[in-house]
């Protein structure tokens, strides 16, 4: 097997892996609906809508 053939297999495998990763990520987002902190992804829109400096953060950093 020459280097070009190896590259081709490597490239194909990488593409498949990335596609699986992307679809896995989509499945993960829509099945869990919430991130590790238990915050619904959709509530993150409030980061833009309630963005005055004295508004309460969606998930405050100090809670760590």
């Amino acid at each position, binding site marked *: 097997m020459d280097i070009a053939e190896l590259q081709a297999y490597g490239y194909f495998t990488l593409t498949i892996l*990335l596609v699986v990763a*992307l679809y896995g990520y989509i499945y993960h987002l829509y099945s869990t609906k919430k991130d590790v902190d238990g915050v619904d992804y959709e509530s993150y829109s409030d980061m833009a809508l309630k963005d005055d400096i004295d508004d309460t953060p969606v998930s405050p950093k100090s809670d760590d």
Partner: protein
Amino acid sequence: MENRPLEYDYTIAKMFMFTTIVLGIVGMLIGVILAFQLAFPGVNLILGEGLAEYTNFSRLRPLHTDAVIFGFTLSGVFATWYYVGQRVLKVSMAESKLLMVLGKAHFWLYLVVVASVVVSLLAGVTTSKEYAEFEWPIDIAVVVVWVIFGMSIFGLIGIRREKSLYISVWYYIATFLGIAMLYLFNNMEIPTMFATSAAGESGIGSWYHSVSMYSGTNDALVQWWYGHNAVAFGFTVPIVAMIYYFLPKESGQAIYSYKLSLLSFWGLMFVYLWAGGHHLLYSTVPDWMQTMGSIFSIILILPSWGSAINMLLTMKGEWQQVAASPLIKFMILASTFYMFSTLEGPIQAIKSVNAIAHFTDWIVGHVHDGVLGWVGFMIMASLYHMAPRVFKREIYSKSLMATQFWIQTLGVVLYFTSMWIAGITQGMMWRAHDEFGNLAYSFIDTVTVLHPYYAIRGVGGLLYLVGFLMFAYNIYKTMSAREVENHELQNASPMGA
């Protein structure tokens, strides 16, 4: 010590708003001059024979592209970052002396780079690489400015109160990382003073000249990996960052699907970097690479439309706002033009279509419906939204803004329709031949046929420039318009008649 409540600090945002407007006027004015030079070659001598060296098409062309890309657009990206970044991270720049110093250094060094670019390009000093014309001393200065921008981004993120990063921040980070990588690799060059010729001479040429580290096909590949992804990370990614903040904020509507915004982000990052090969179809680069460029360009429709549809659906049930607010009109049209040019681009990247489209004015038309309709509209809309908030005054005139919207929309439509017709005509004429394979037309035949479309394009560009001057005037007058209370700034921007 007085005990004032904490406020966001828009000093740096205001500085970059200023350069966005000034460099926008400069870049678009040069663009209009170039358009009329193509239609009426006498315009090359607009300032007389003596100054023809400085006013001809080839000297002004890189000034136009660099002024609108690295001047207008990047200033808009910086201005919105220094506004949006603080707000979605819920931290004020005033809370960190270091961030303020970095922000000011960012602005002033950027201005020095802009000045040196204008002088050097007018003087004809260039590396001759498209969109990467700057010689090595300027490249080094660009890298310094970019590193400071990065320190500003990550510095602000470091002191944030909001744990998660809003989707726009992801896009700003991607802009920073993407352009850093592209710029460094494409501008790898060796100053000629370090080179030795075959005859043994050293110290060849002026101290500021350089040669690329790549040559031939490799050079072309790196150049278009850079060139196409400059469109990705300069004209797409940061503009998506803007619309994800400014449209929901101005309309008061939550993003239709935050999850869709996340997967569109990763989709875009995954696909975009591979598409640059479509600039080199039917050239000497390997065939598989050309095919890959085509395929990835077509897949690119999905993440692009993912973001654009997400924005249009954000207006679900609220479409009366589009009729009522010229500011929302700008953003909805921007999003529509984004969908339009991200469909047009992949079509042009199909090999058989590219056989007609390559090197023609259709490509120029495609670039301009993207930048005028999507990038320009979105940056102006962002600045319109920011102006009442940074100046604490209402937008000077709603009717002026509405008039500007229609003038510029007409300008964009004239621009791209004339270029479609010109491009396809050109492509068909170049390949037409008789039964023996002799070409049916000479080059000058196409020039004669295309003349009216070039004139229409010039008019379209001029209308867009007129609209931009109206925008500049509106923002200028906003600085002395009626003062507003904080509660008026929650969502829809306050506007005078």
